[in-house]
């Protein structure tokens, strides 16, 4: 018996080692960092313990800008991407011909490098002295004025960021929703058919309640993912996000840690913990709402 127990832990040992060193220890350490005031990473010393790091971060205009950007991004992309994904998934499950082809094509962005395709988006939307770019070409077709979406006004930059984020998260949502729709029992639809129920009614009264757990799952993971947005913004606006006014909370954490304004793990930790607190709060609210509206 004794041998058996050692053996069990022996098999677990690699996983425990990796998780201990790179997950459990850092998790504790990040809280310690966030309370150490005036931490110097070169000499590894600090002056005192307190809330100074949190105060500093919460007063930093760059952080406030990042929070604003992140909240706008979340508020725009989560409802829009979930809604469009729902529309497309319902459309997908109502057809037979070409369905597999569409499904495969829609999933393509999932496997592509965010940084690489982001560069393509930048070129599509960028306006330079040599060319107005493709997006502006389309705008001009409809009689609009050219806008520089990459170095121009704030709303234009935010639009591209939201657009690209939606493009990136769509494959996952469509995939999950189509498989949820496929699992709705045919009996309910047949019953509705017998009663001659209109399409919209069928959707609102049968389809939506049946897939509501999946929709809420997507909303919750969507919130979490959007709050952690970072590489999409880097792909579009480059690594100096503060200069572009397009930084996100995660971007702020990494900038504090490393890069031109880096070397402050304490501020980074405080910002990361604030982010975690925001995400946790929103997730709890979501779960509370979902308990009221989701049919299991």
């Amino acid at each position, binding site marked *: 018996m004794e041998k058996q127990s050692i053996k069990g832990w022996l098999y*677990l040992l690699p996983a425990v080692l*990796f*998780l201990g060193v*790179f997950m459990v220890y850092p*998790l504790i350490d990040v809280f310690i960092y966030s309370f150490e005031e005036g931490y110097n990473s070169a000499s590894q010393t600090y002056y005192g313990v307190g809330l100074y790091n949190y105060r500093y971060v919460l007063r930093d205009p760059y952080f406030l800008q990042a929070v604003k950007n992140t909240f706008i991004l979340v508020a725009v992309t989560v409802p829009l991407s979930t809604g469009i994904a729902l529309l497309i998934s319902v459309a997908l499950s109502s*057809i037979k011909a070409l369905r597999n082809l569409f499904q495969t094509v829609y999933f393509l962005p999932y496997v592509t*490098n965010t940084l690489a395709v982001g560069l393509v988006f930048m070129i599509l939307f960028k306006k330079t002295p040599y060319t107005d770019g493709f997006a502006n070409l389309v705008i001009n077709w409809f009689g609009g004025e050219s806008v520089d979406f990459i170095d121009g006004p704030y709303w234009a930059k935010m639009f591209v960021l939201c657009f690209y984020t939606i493009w990136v998260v769509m494959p996952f949502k469509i995939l999950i929703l189509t498989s949820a729709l496929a699992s709705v029992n045919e009996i309910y639809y047949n019953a509705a058919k017998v009663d001659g129920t209109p399409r919209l009614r069928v959707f609102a009264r049968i389809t939506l309640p049946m897939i509501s757990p999946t929709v809420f799952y997507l909303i919750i993971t969507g919130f979490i993912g959007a709050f952690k947005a970072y590489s999409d913004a880097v792909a579009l606006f*480059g690594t100096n996000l503060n200069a572009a006014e397009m930084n996100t909370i995660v971007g702020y954490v990494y900038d504090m840690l490393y890069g031109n304004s880096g070397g402050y793990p304490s501020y980074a930790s405080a910002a*990361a913990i604030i982010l975690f607190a925001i995400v946790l709060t929103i997730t709890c609210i979501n779960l509370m709402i979902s308990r009221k509206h989701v049919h299991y």
Partner: protein
Amino acid sequence: MANQMDYEMIEKRAKAGNFAVKALIYALLAVWGIVVLFPFYWMILTSLKSYSAYSSEFVPQLYTLAPTLENYQDAFTAVPLGSYFINTLIFTVATTAIMLFVTVLAAFAFARLDFPGKDIAFVVFLSLMMIPNELVVITNFVTITNLDMRNTFVGLILPSVTSVFYIYLLRENFAQIPDELYYAAKVDATSDLKYLFKVMIPICRPTLITITILKVIECWNSYVWPRLITDDQAYFLVSNGIQEIRENGFGRENIPAMMAAVVVISVPLIVLFLVFHKKIMAGVARGGMKG
């Protein structure tokens, strides 16, 4: 007779209505298909235009009549794209291999062995799934820096190995294998390790392939950790390479060459996807996450 006419009219109208709805549905799907595919079309198209042709287009052309491959040559000669590629390959293969080793052993212990503290350990593992990477990356950065492992493959790989979710996924799969097989193997005096490799792993091969593919995708696209831990170009992965190319390579205006680099970087995963698309989509539907 008049009634008969009415029925025909109603039927016709219903058919026309149905047709209109179908057309609308296909139009919607086609529009989204174009939105998805257009960036890919644009990057291939731009990569085939010569620099001079591209620069002289004030209004972007939607096609090219004089495709050229010189941008691809530039992509490999003017910037170290080949070395970014090899780095990413080393990183991906090593990370995935170590991840598989760790995951298989841990999943086996949780699914098959009995030892004191197993249940508590499993609950702790599960709760670790909820820890966002952003919280732990700060200390990991400091740890790796203090160990003097910046700009090394070891520093890149080690913190990227752990995936609690895959351990969980594989454990669930292992647990479905009937106990009778294990007892039969025990009667034949088969060692646990041999049982794991000769019975469990072959049975759970589909799950292992799914995990492997998902991890490969994750590694190939990883950006944040490599960016923090490498500032020496010799250790850049493709994501960092793309960012470097964008900011310093080729000169800012040589967009066709940049697009050639983007195409080269995207091709491996797209090929992987086209070959394994059923497996990948099924794997992600079972609970994959991006990043």
